[in-house]
């Protein structure tokens, strides 16, 4: 499942679906809204492009790290502290591939997928600055 959506997702169900024949390890990354004096988080995406980028990252991760299954669900809209923002579920034959594949996916998302976060803070709102300035992300498109 590769998706950009408002709704949360059943992580337990994703884990079960990730257990393809040959699976020896499932790794789950769950990015959540942190309580940094933040009331809520507003997430926005260039949806058509972001979804295409996520699909490419998933395919790359499968090939590079011999993953058996990949789910990436990135949420958009308004989220409260503690809510899930990004869920990545990967499975592989062994834990090194599963850990490396999961790490690869999150780092690639941060480099180049057009999604933005705005913190709605107690002391005023603030767009979260990107970690990668123009040019450092690998352009896929």
């Amino acid at each position: 499942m590769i998706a950009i959506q408002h709704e949360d997702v059943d992580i337990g169900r994703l884990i079960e679906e990730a257990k393809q024949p040959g699976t020896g390890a499932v790794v789950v990354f769950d990015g959540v809204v942190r309580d940094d004096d933040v009331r809520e988080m507003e997430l926005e995406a260039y949806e058509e492009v972001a979804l295409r980028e996520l699909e490419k990252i998933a395919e790359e991760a499968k090939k590079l790290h011999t993953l058996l299954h990949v789910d990436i669900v990135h949420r958009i809209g308004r989220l409260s502290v503690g809510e899930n923002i990004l869920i990545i579920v990967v499975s592989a034959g062994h834990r090194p591939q599963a850990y490396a594949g999961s790490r690869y996916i999150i780092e690639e998302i941060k480099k180049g997928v057009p999604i933005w976060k705005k913190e709605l803070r107690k002391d005023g709102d603030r767009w979260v600055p990107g970690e990668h300035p123009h040019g450092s992300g690998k352009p896929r498109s």
Partner: protein
Amino acid sequence: MTVKIRFFARFRELLGTDILVEKKSGTMLATLVKDIALEKKEGYDAIFDANGNFREFVIVMRNGKRLEPAETATVMVADGDEIAVFPPVAGG
């Protein structure tokens, strides 16, 4: 010809989004974006530097494909194009 401009994140807040503009063919991409951005000084200053060039961190896409900074000054838009302009991404 008709071209759609989409701003995202802070640029969207300053300038709006899904803006349809009518231009004559041969219009440069940078000129098109500049004309829209000039409607609000704060929006213009967020995207362009004092010399009228896209700021270094600004990302420009044409029909979902990213343009390199040097290309933005030389590319002409075509009828039906979708131009996206946004700050560095911060997903995850």
